[in-house]
C-alpha cells in the first residue's frame, strides 16, 4: 500500500489531484480537500502524476 499525505497548510484547493484521480481525492462543498490515505500499489502512476501536478507541492506519497 502507498500512504498519501496532503499538507493542509499548503493545499489551496486547485483540484489537480481530483482531476487526475477523482476516486482518491475529493473537494467538499467548502472546497476542502479529502483523500484516501492508503492506496493500492496499482495506482502508483496516478499518485505520482498528482504529486507532480499539484501546484502547491502539497501531496507526498510514501511506500
Amino acid at each position: 500500500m502507498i500512504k498519501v499525505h496532503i499538507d493542509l497548510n499548503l493545499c489551496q484547493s486547485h483540484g489537480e489531484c481530483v482531476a487526475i484521480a477523482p476516486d482518491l481525492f475529493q473537494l467538499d462543498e467548502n472546497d476542502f480537500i479529502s483523500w484516501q490515505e492508503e492506496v493500492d500499489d496499482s495506482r502508483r502512476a496516478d499518485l505520482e502524476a498528482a504529486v507532480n501536478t499539484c501546484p502547491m507541492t502539497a501531496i507526498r506519497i510514501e511506500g
Partner: protein
Amino acid sequence: MRLVIVGASLSGLRAAQAARRAGHEGELIVIGAEPHLPYTRPPLSKELLQGKQEIEDSALPVDELDVQWRLGTEATGLDRTRRRVRLQDGGEEHYDRLIIATGCRARRFDGPGAHLDGVHTLRTLEDAVALRAALASTRRLLVVGAGFIGCEVAASARSLGVEVTMVDIASHPLVPFGPALGKRWAQMHRDHGVELRLGPGLEALYGDTGSERVAGARLSDGTSVEADTVLIALGATLNTEWLTGSGLELDPGVACDPTLTSTRDPEILAAGDIASVPAALAGGARVRVEHWTTAAEHGQLAGRNALVAHDERTAHTAPPYFWTDQYDAKIQALGCPALAEHSELLELSPDGGRFVAACVQGRLVVGVVAVNAARRLAWYRRALQTPRPLTELKEALAQEDATLGSPVGAMP
C-alpha cells in the same frame, strides 16, 4: 541514450523526473541559465512578495534525481546535424534526445527612463527579492500592465499598505477573460484602493532632476503618475534566441505536434511556456500556454515521450488550467478563455462572492472561469473534455444538484 534538457525550471525538472521514473538509465543532463535548482514562480508575485513565504519555500522538491546539473550556464546555440547544444562557456553537450524547456523572460520597457533605479520586472527569484525589498519603503507603486502578474502584484502591494496606481492600454484588467468579467476585476481592484488608469499607455519614466531614481511616469494621454517604484508587467518574451539558425520551426514558440515533438526533428521535444502545441479547444490550432499546470504536464509527458520512438509517443490532451490569487478571490480558469467572444454566467452564490462563467465562441464553450469555486470547477473539468455547445452544457448543469445557485440577470 543521452538525454539533454535545456531549461532548469518547472517543465525541465518535471521532464527529468518523468524520464527517470519511466526507466531512463542513461545520462541525464539539465542545463539552466539561472544559478538555482528549480523553483516555483507563482509565489513570487503572491506569498513571497507579501512576506508570507520565504525564498526557501519556493524551491521545488528535487528528490534523489540522478541528474548532471549545469546551472548558471546558458545554451547559446543548437547544431542539429551534429546533435550538439553549444554553451556560453564555449563547451558543448552532445544529445541523443533533447527537450527544450527554456520558457520566457519578462518583457522590458524600452522607452525613456527604462534604466532608472526603482524600475522592476518580475520573473525570477532575484526579481522578487528586489521588488519585496523595494516595497518595504515604497509610498506609491506604479504597475504598468494589468495582466495576471500586474494584478497580483497590485493586490500584494495593497496588502502591505503600499499605494498603487495600475495602468493599462486595455479597457479592463485581465484581458484574456473578456470585457464582461473585466468590469468585475476592475471593480475589485478599485474596492481595494487601487487607482486604475485604463486606456493610456506608458510613454516615459522620469526621475527628479539630477537623480537616477524614478519619480514618476508620463502617460500617452498627457497625464502623469508619481511613483517611487515601478513594476513593468507587460507580459513575457520567449527565450528562443539560442535556437536561431537551428532550422527548428518557431511560430514564435517551438512548433510541436500533439506529442510535444518538434515539427522538424523527431529527436527534439519541447515543454512548458515555450511549446506551441495543437489544442482541441482551439480547433486544432497550435497554442502556447504560459501557465504552471501546463508546464508541469508538458514536462511529465515530454520526459516519457523522449524515451520512445516518435510513433509510440502519446499526445497532450488536457485542457489548460490556471489560477490567479488576488485579495480574497481565487480565480481559476479552464480551457482557452482568450478565444471566447463573450462570457455567460452559469452559477452564482446567493452572496455573490462565488461564481462560474462560461467563455463562449460561436455556440461552443471554450473556457470556464470560476471564482472561489474549486469544487465546481472540478465538475466542469469532467464536462469539458472536448468543446461542447453551451446549450448542451446547460442541460447537463440542470441535472446537477450541487451548483452554487442560479444566476438571475446579467453578469455580476
